């Protein structure tokens, strides 16, 4: 059985600093994996390697059996052509910490852009699909609003709709609530929980420990460029095996659910 996501011995350097020191990970379809860890542990970097927003120097990433970003031709590792990489990015969807909505387009425009230009759908087909997804995240009534007219939580939900409207096999969430005011965090987490319930495969980098505990089928704790500990959320949070994880949990906001 081919895993949905297969990361083997991932190495990445920023200049002279090695940020990912050999990461291995397998993910099956339908899994929801939360990646936790302190800043600098490499969790966001790993996520960004998966959709080639970052280059990586060693190891391999496979989505549904397809090798991402690089190929070995005659024993020589080579970066794939830009057009190929652009096509591969359609396999994943990403929601960013800073939302990164296109400010000059309405919510509807943001969601339809990819459908029309990348998936080559007809305008009304794209519109209908986009409206369905905006409705899914609860923002159909705001479809003609511009990002500047929306709250942070609303913008992030539109950003999520924009990503899942492209029908990705794997959704990547990069600390999507870290830039939000506390009272706006829940509306976004709720959308993610709903997506999880519907069977979407998701890799979520987050600081929201309680959320990670509630939504994930597996948790990965990253520490200094490597996977420190991984397992099911109950065990990881309540019975951390490594000292590092225990330290990390102590200084985080997680409170034991009783």
């Amino acid at each position, binding site marked *: 059985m081919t895993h949905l996501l297969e990361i083997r011995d991932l190495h990445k350097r920023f200049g002279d600093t090695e940020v990912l020191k050999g990461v291995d990970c397998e993910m099956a379809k339908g899994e929801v994996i939360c990646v936790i860890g302190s800043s600098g542990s490499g969790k966001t970097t790993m996520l960004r390697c998966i959709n080639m927003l970052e280059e990586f120097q060693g190891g391999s990433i496979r989505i549904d059996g397809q090798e991402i970003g690089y190929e070995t031709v005659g024993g020589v590792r080579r970066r794939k052509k830009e057009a190929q990489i652009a096509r591969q*990015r359609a396999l994943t969807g990403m929601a960013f910490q800073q939302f*990164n909505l296109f400010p*000059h387009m309405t919510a509807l425009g943001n969601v339809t852009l990819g459908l029309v*230009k990348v998936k080559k759908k007809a305008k009304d087909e794209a519109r209908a699909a986009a409206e369905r997804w905006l409705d899914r995240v609860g923002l159909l009534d705001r479809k003609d609003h511009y990002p*500047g007219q929306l709250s942070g939580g609303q913008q992030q939900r539109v950003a999520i709709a924009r990503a899942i409207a492209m029908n990705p096999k794997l959704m990547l969430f990069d600390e999507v609530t870290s830039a939000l005011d506390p009272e706006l965090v829940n509306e976004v987490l709720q959308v993610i929980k709903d997506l999880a319930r519907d069977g979407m495969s998701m890799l979520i980098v987050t600081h929201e420990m309680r959320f990670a505990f509630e939504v994930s089928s597996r948790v990965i704790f990253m520490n200094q460029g490597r996977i420190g500990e991984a397992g099911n959320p109950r065990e990881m949070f309540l019975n951390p095996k490594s000292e590092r994880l225990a330290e990390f949990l102590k200084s985080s906001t997680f409170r034991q659910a009783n």
Partner: protein
Amino acid sequence: MDLAFLDQLWLARLPLLRGLGVTVVISALAIAAGTFAGVFVGLALTYGPRPLRWLVRGYTDFVRGTPVLVLVLASFYVLSTIGLQLNAFQAGVLALAVFCSSHVGEIVRGALQAIPAGQSEAAKAIGLTFRQTFIYVLVPQAIRQILPTWVNTAAEMVKASTLLSIIGVGELLLATQEVISRTFMSLPFYFFAGALYFAVNYGIERFGRYVDRKTTVPS
């Protein structure tokens, strides 16, 4: 109002109107050519390979460090010497276009670099190619920043057109000086010329504000 002035103004209406026409043509040509070239300059500065960027940077730094009058005079005197037979009008417009291109280049570069990196990342994440990202995401945002400053530059070019009077091109200021040399009414005629230029530039300023209002995204 001095009646003698009004009489003379009426008598001089044709040469002055012709001068105004020449001013408009000079400005329009310089702005058009300068903007066209300036876009390439800006693109080269933002996306070009290092040697190209270095070269273009040298060009813009040199042009922007030189007063416009020096550019006009140099263009006028030098070009005929190196075998390029340009008359004063052509030499002048060329100098103004070069000046305009360096400014537009800076404006374009500034606007493109001001777009947050996250925009390109989000575009990549949904699978857009660089060409698509540039056309649908970067250009619309850059244009909103470029337009008001560009309108400013256009007004500067109208003001700079007066410098061509120094190399003998028959635009409005030279026409005014010719009328003054006949009538000796320097005060009212210089004032009149000033008022005309003011009207044109003020009109451009108001147009700029209108464009700014129309292109701002509601927030």
